[in-house]
Every structure is written in structure tokens, then in C-alpha cells.
């Protein structure tokens, strides 16, 4: 019950140890693994979960949960692609981000004003947005996107893939918001003890709504990047990503019940999963065994992380 700070520190660095252990293990098992080119690939692959995870971190720190990220991602991606065809890249991207943010904010409103548990509200949004995507795309991928749009998901700045840069920028901004602004402080407070936060004059409803709007915005961004990577908007994009995003957050040591956690833990959590997927492919574990191995490795990684606590 006492000295949690110490615990926190271990929790944070613990998971980092897990990540490093993983990298070492794979480096031993495959000489192709720990190369610059492969690490860049891993990071680019990770960026998708990272975007979602960063948004999810806000939501979970505020003691919420967002199951709709995968569907919102798909809807935003589809709308962006659709608008892009006729009105050009810029408006397309704008439209996509707008849709994502709006859907997120809507979830937030439902949760705060109708007092519906976040789990249910976003589960409903998950279905609505997915359905909306299917209706909007008529179940077909949206293709024929302007070629310059490719840059977003497949371009490079120097030798660095653009999504990686975008991920880092997003991370830094999110970190600043969470650590240096009142809003960030209020996110922690709301998740830590909503009554005390309210009693301190914090408009907790607005905090919660903003959290979901942020998550929605980043889902939208992810959808756009993904469409660029896949050169098309898929109606089925992002299915099941909500679990990956939440997993990244919780792997990162954030308390699923809110109030405690660090943004960069999420980044590490996302990497652990990205490395796992890539590494297991590199050392070609048969796809059936991959899942078993994946599960076991996650347990080991987290155990390492926790072990420090005692």
C-alpha cells in the first residue's frame, strides 16, 4: 500500500526492460532482425497502433475506454478518400479528421450527458461507424486516390518513413498537452477521483468529451495514413484494432481504471507488439504457433516488468 512512487518507477522502466529483452532475443534468433531497415519498418508498422494508443491513453487516464477507434478509423479513412477524389487531398484530409473528431466527441457527449457507460457508448459507436462506413462505401474499397497522397503513408523524409515522423510529432504534442497544460492535469484528476475533481471546480464533463474527441481525431488520422499506405480506403479497415490500442496502453503501465499512467509507456507498449509481430515473422514461427508464442511472450515481458516491484 505504501511507497507507490518507487513502484511507478519500476513499472515504467520495467516494461522498457521487457522491450529491450525482446529486441535482444530476436536479434540473437535472426541476424536480419536488428538492422536499421528492419527497425524502420517495425516503427512504421507500429505507428498505426501508436496513433490509436496515444488517443486511447487520454481516454483511459480519464477512466474511460474507447472501443470505437477501429470503426472510426475506417469511416474517417473512407470519407477522406471519398472527398479527396472530387475535392483534392487537402479537403479530403480535413474531412477525414473532422469526421473522426466529431464521432469521438459524440461518444463523449453520450457518455457524459446521457450517463451511459463508456464501454456501452463506444461499443454502440463501434457498430454505428462500421455500418456508416459500409453504407458510405457501399462495401467496396474507395480507390483512385491522388498519387501525391501516397506520401503520407509511404513517403520518406531523408531515410525516415513519414509515418514515423508523424508518430513522433504526435507523441511530443500529446506529451506536452498531458504534462504541461491544465487540461492534462485535469485528465489525470478526473480519472483519479471524479468527485474530488468536480469539487475542485473542474468541468469534468468537458474533460471527458475532449478525451474522446482526441481519440476520435487520432483515429481519423490513423484512417487517413492507413488509406495512404494501402492506396485505398478499406471498408473493413481497423477491425479489432481497439484491443491492440488498449493493450498498448495497459502494457505501458497505465491503470485501466484511470488516473495513473504515462504516455511514453503506451509508445513502448505499441513497440512491444510491433516487434513481436515483426520478429515472429522474421524467425518464421508457423502462423498457428505464433499466437501461442505471442501470448506467452507478452506474459513474460509483463512479468519482467512487474518483478521489479517486489
Amino acid at each position, binding site marked *: *500500500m505504501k511507497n*507507490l512512487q518507487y513502484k511507478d518507477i519500476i513499472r515504467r522502466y520495467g516494461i522498457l526492460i521487457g522491450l529491450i529483452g525482446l529486441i535482444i532475443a530476436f536479434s540473437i534468433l535472426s541476424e536480419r532482425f536488428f538492422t536499421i531497415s528492419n527497425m524502420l519498418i517495425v516503427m512504421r508498422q507500429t505507428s498505426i497502433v501508436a496513433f490509436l494508443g496515444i488517443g486511447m491513453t487520454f481516454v483511459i487516464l480519464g477512466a474511460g475506454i474507447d472501443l470505437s477507434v477501429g470503426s472510426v478509423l475506417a469511416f474517417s479513412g473512407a470519407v477522406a478518400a471519398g472527398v479527396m477524389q472530387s475535392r483534392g487531398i487537402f479537403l479530403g484530409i480535413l474531412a477525414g479528421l473532422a469526421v473522426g473528431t466529431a464521432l469521438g466527441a459524440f461518444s463523449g457527449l453520450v457518455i457524459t450527458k446521457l450517463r451511459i457507460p463508456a464501454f456501452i457508448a463506444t461499443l454502440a459507436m463501434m457498430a454505428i461507424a462500421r455500418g456508416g462506413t459500409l453504407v458510405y462505401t457501399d462495401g467496396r474499397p474507395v480507390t483512385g486516390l491522388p498519387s501525391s497522397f501516397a506520401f503520407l503513408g509511404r513517403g520518406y523524409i531523408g531515410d525516415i518513413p513519414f509515418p514515423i515522423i508523424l508518430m513522433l510529432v504526435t507523441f511530443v504534442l500529446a506529451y506536452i498537452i498531458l504534462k*504541461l497544460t491544465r487540461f492534462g*492535469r485535469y485528465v489525470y484528476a478526473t480519472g483519479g477521483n471524479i468527485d474530488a475533481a468536480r469539487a475542485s471546480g473542474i468541468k469534468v464533463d468537458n474533460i471527458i468529451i475532449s478525451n474522446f474527441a482526441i481519440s476520435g481525431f487520432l483515429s481519423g488520422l490513423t484512417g487517413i495514413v492507413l488509406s495512404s499506405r494501402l492506396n485505398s480506403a478499406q471498408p473493413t479497415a481497423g477491425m479489432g484494432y481497439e484491443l491492440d490500442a488498449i493493450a498498448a496502453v495497459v502494457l505501458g503501465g497505465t491503470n485501466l481504471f484511470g488516473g495513473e499512467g504515462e504516455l511514453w509507456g503506451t509508445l513502448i507498449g505499441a513497440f512491444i507488439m510491433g516487434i513481436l509481430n515483426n520478429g515472429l515473422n522474421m524467425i518464421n514461427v508457423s502462423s498457428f504457433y505464433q499466437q501461442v508464442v505471442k501470448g506467452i511472450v507478452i506474459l513474460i515481458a509483463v512479468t519482467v516488468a512487474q518483478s521489479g516491484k517486489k
Partner: protein
Amino acid sequence: MNKIALEFINISKSFPGVKALKKVSIKIKQAKVHAIVGENGAGKSTLMKIAVGELLRDTGTIKVFDREAQINSPSDGYHYGISLIHQEFSLVPTLDVVQNIFLGREITKGPLSFLDSNQMYKRTEEILDFLKMFHLDPHLKIEDLTIAQKQVVEIAKALSLNSKIIIMDEPSAALTLEETHRLFEVVRELKSRGVTTLFISHRIEEIFEIADEVSILRDGELILTKQVAQIDRKQVINNMVGRSLEFVFPPKAKQKKEAKVILEVKKITKERQFSDISFQLKEGEIIGLAGLVGSGRSEVALSLFGLNHLDKGEIFLQGKTVKINSPFEAIRNGLALLPEDRRELGLVIVRNVLENLTLPDLYWDIARKYFIDLKKEISLAKGVQKELAIRFASLSQKVESLSGGNQQKVVVGKWLLTKPKILIMDEPTRGIDVGAKLEIYNIVNTLAKKGIGIIFISSEFSEILGVAHRILVMSEGRITKELDPKSTKEEDILKFATRKKVS
């Protein structure tokens, strides 16, 4: 000059099952200390929460400096310059001291108005220095603080608002003499600056020490408001309880000559918490464990009860050495612990009174063979309710919604049901009214008569003197002195409680 700083006019409030306030009207004069007293559940906290807008009144109006105030949401109280020191603390456990004190009014800097942590840290240190209570690291998380420390943070937060009206809901309950006196100095200082204070306490003597006026509530009704000068202790108590009640410590249970030792601890030590604690407890004996905040009493209690592991030392029960590694084993060995922080270790506040009362006893009695004997359970629960005069609408009421004192009584009750051989009480009378205190003292005596050994931890030295057969004084994790209450005064205890070296 006596402008009216705050005025309640016909405030009523009811909760399902109870009318907590019935047309209460009180005038609070500016720059005065106005005490509110009443039994547990009388409606004090409810009225105070209404004053700051954390609860919404059903009817009635609130005036601040003679103007009607629209206080309908938690932030409104702050806007009208009223701040509340909560009885059940209103802090964010996952944030640290600084972050809690400035929550909602963070100091920012720069064009982007980023948080100015250094500034806030400095101001926090200033506030804590001004309070001059014990040292407290501003970077500690609330969840890592002892209850006394939490209380101090709660006070510091309210003061840092520089409000014109400060409401203190049992601020002294979790404090020891020293800090309480310091708190009073602070209150007087504020008073001299024209700040108005509402002060709630169950320690009547404190009323007479600090208050100018006193209002007495009973069952949600205002009984009277009087100048403290024009009323005496006895009148206050009688008006509170609604009958004539003599507040004197009941005669202590006689100890049998042939009483044998039931608990002996030899040189138990826990790093950085306490060291070389040794004492014997005889059956039917009441040991008073006195000390200041942080002296290690609670940690000793937790260790005896298997919630903390010991680094060194032995524990003997009925002469046999035992290892107690879990509360389960502790209970099996006939121990019971009344924890100092009821919300942390005492209660499952989202569950109802019945379930909380019988929780520890299920295994040993009520549900011996897996199934719960509901009849028995209810009758036992009703039994302790009567014995302790616990006030609630029904056994199925959530503990969350009980008044602070009644919550405390529920914790006492749940341990009485386990019929312990050794009962450790850590601040058992914290926040409970005089009537209930007497009841607790009587219970302690009856239990002692039954041969139960009791370790009575308290920060109220008068109480220790009035209850214990033998007093052990702790300071900085060591027992500094054993005292005999018959030949001891409060100052003596304080002397050894602040003594650094072992005598």
C-alpha cells in the same frame, strides 16, 4: 462590527429514507469562529456540502454577505469565496500533494500558459510552513499518505484558496494535540484577518477553546445558536443528544490478579517504521498506545494483524510463538483490528451496511458451511446496531451514504461480531459523537471484563488516560515510556511522545 458573512435560511434536504435537514436557519457572523455540533448523522456535513454547492438543497436560500447566493454546483462555493475542508477527504489519490492543493487553479506561465510546477511547489511549501504542522514531502502521492497527512493536505488546500469563509468539517479528528493546537493558532490568525470560520468537531472541549458561537443540530433540526460564553459543556452535550448525559469516563474494569498474558511481542521491528517494540498484554487489560502522528502506532497495529511483514522480532499468543502473515491467520488467532482509515481498510463503501457488518464473521459463524444463514446474519446485525446505536435508514443502505461517525460505528460493529480475544483499536473514536464515544468506552470496558485484551491507539491523550490500564508512549517508531494513568497528566505523555531518545 458583526456583518453576517454567511446565512442559511430554511435549508431542507432529504435523502431516500432520511430527512437530513429540516428548515435549518443559521446566521454566521463575519470574523468569528462558529461551531456546529451534533450527533453523528445530525446533518452537519450535509449542511456544509450544501453551503459550497456539492449537494443541492431541496429548499431554502443561502446568503453571502447579505446577498442571495446562487450556489448550485461545486465550483460555485469557490466563486463566493467559501471553501470546505471535507470530513471524508476530497483528494485525488493518484496525484501528489502539490497537484492536489492547486487542483482547479493551477499556476501557469508563458504565452502558452504551461503549468508552473516550481511556482506551485514553492507556494505549497509556504502554505505548509505557515501551517507549521509536521514535515510533509509535497511530491508524495496522496495514496501514500497516512490519514493525518491527508488531513493536513485537505486543510492546506482549503487555506490556499484565501477564502473569506472557511468551513472545517472535523479537521481535528485525524490530528493529534500538537497539530490541533497549531490548527487553532492558524484559525485565530485567519480570524484576525477577517476570515470567517465554521468549525465542526465532536471534541466538545475544542469548541470552548476556539469558537465564539455554537449552533447545535439534532436530527436535522437546529436546536439553538448561542454565544459560547453563555453555554457550558453539559448544556451543549444535553442539547446534542436530547437527554441529560454526563460525559465522564466510565470506571475502568478491575483487572484480575491471576490474569495471564495472552499477547507478548518481543523486539518486533519493521525497517523505517518502528523498532524493538516489546510489550505484554494480559487478558482483560487495556493498553493505551499514545504518540504523535507518524510515531508508528498504526504500523505496529498493521503488523500485528498480518498486513505488514515484520523484519525482526517474535509474537507469542497464549505463550505459543506464532507467525501471522495474513489477516485471516490473525483473525483465526482471535485478533481484530479497527483500522485508522475506515475507507481504506475498514469498509467496502459501495456495499450495504449488512454486508459490511458481517463480512469478517461470515467464515467463522454466519456462513460456517458455505451458505449464509440470513436470519442469523440479520439478527446479529440488528444486535450490534442497537448496541452501538448506529444510525441508518435500512440495513440495505449503502455505507457510502452513512454519516462519517456512523461509518466508523459500522467498522466497530463488524469486529465486535467476530468476538475477538485481542482487539486492536486504531483511533476508534475518530469522528464519533460524545454519546457514541461513551458507548465505545463502555464497550471497551465490557469487553475487558469478558477477559479480552485491548490495544487502544489514540491521539487524544485525555481519552487514553480515561480508558487505559497502562500507557505505552511511542515516538519515532520506538516505545519511549510506560506510564501509569493514575499518576500521569497529559503533559507527561506529550513529553515522552516528543522525546527523541529512548529513556
